[in-house]
């Protein structure tokens, strides 16, 4: 008799947990929708002299839920600064080695410009030497990503920078 009632309790408990989990799932779904909405409105500037790399990044960002019309493209730091002078962006993803103004000169300019200094900056490069990574960090780079990169890794870094 007693064992019957305790068994029933476990079943009831599991049933309640199941329902609570379902409610939480619904809640997560609505938060996910809100985030999708937010990502669609987020503006990202991609700076890379390689057209192939621009395309790879554009594809990845669209896969993450960003909208292509909100992604700006520039092939060096100077052009990126020109674009930034009349459009606001929520995030900059930049290569290091580019003809004209390099990514390092570009981030230094960004961090020294009052209207731009707060924009999160992700440096994407094949520079893996410690002194260069440190140089980027001390210039104000928020996140550093080595090429070739993994899409999931990029997604995490981008979302972390937009928090």
């Amino acid at each position, binding site marked *: 008799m007693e064992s019957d009632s305790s068994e029933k309790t476990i079943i009831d408990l599991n049933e309640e947990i199941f329902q*609570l989990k379902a409610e939480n799932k619904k809640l997560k779904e609505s*938060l996910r929708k809100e985030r999708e909405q937010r990502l669609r409105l987020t503006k990202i500037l991609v700076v890379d002299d390689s057209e192939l790399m621009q395309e790879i990044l554009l594809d990845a960002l669209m896969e993450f839920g960003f909208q292509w019309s909100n992604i700006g493209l520039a092939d060096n730091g100077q052009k990126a600064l020109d674009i930034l002078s009349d459009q606001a962006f929520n995030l900059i993803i930049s290569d290091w080695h580019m003809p004209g103004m390099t990514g390092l000169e570009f981030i230094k300019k960004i961090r020294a410009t009052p209207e731009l200094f707060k924009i999160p900056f992700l440096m994407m490069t094949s520079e893996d030497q410690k002194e260069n990574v440190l140089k980027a960090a001390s210039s104000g780079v928020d996140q550093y990503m080595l090429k070739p990169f993994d899409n999931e890794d990029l997604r*995490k870094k981008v979302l972390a920078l937009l928090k």
Partner: protein
Amino acid sequence: MQITKILVVDDSSAMQEVIFDALIEFGFKRPRIKFANNGQKALRMAYEQFFDLIISDWHMPGLTGLEFIQEIRGHPDLFEIPFIMMTVEDQEKNILKAFSSGVDQYILKPFKIEDLKEKILKVLG
């Protein structure tokens, strides 16, 4: 498993060590395991970094595990992080309170290492 980043939240350093050893044994990587000794610190770390999993104690000074999960589930960027609550709380109403706050898995202390592994694999899908 190589890149899974885990946040372990417990005010007992002995418990932190037990969990750390278990995680290493399961194949997770040392630099990807981070610790906090209360919910407040853990929350700050979650804002600044990206975690794939949180394993948290319930009773801690400062922000408790329950308050911590509520903050996580209500945050527009953190709400999806899988969360395992690890506690001595075995009362039905408290277990339900944890689940209604959004806990994915619940594990009673003391626990068997294999049970922890099973729950981790379950939440990581």
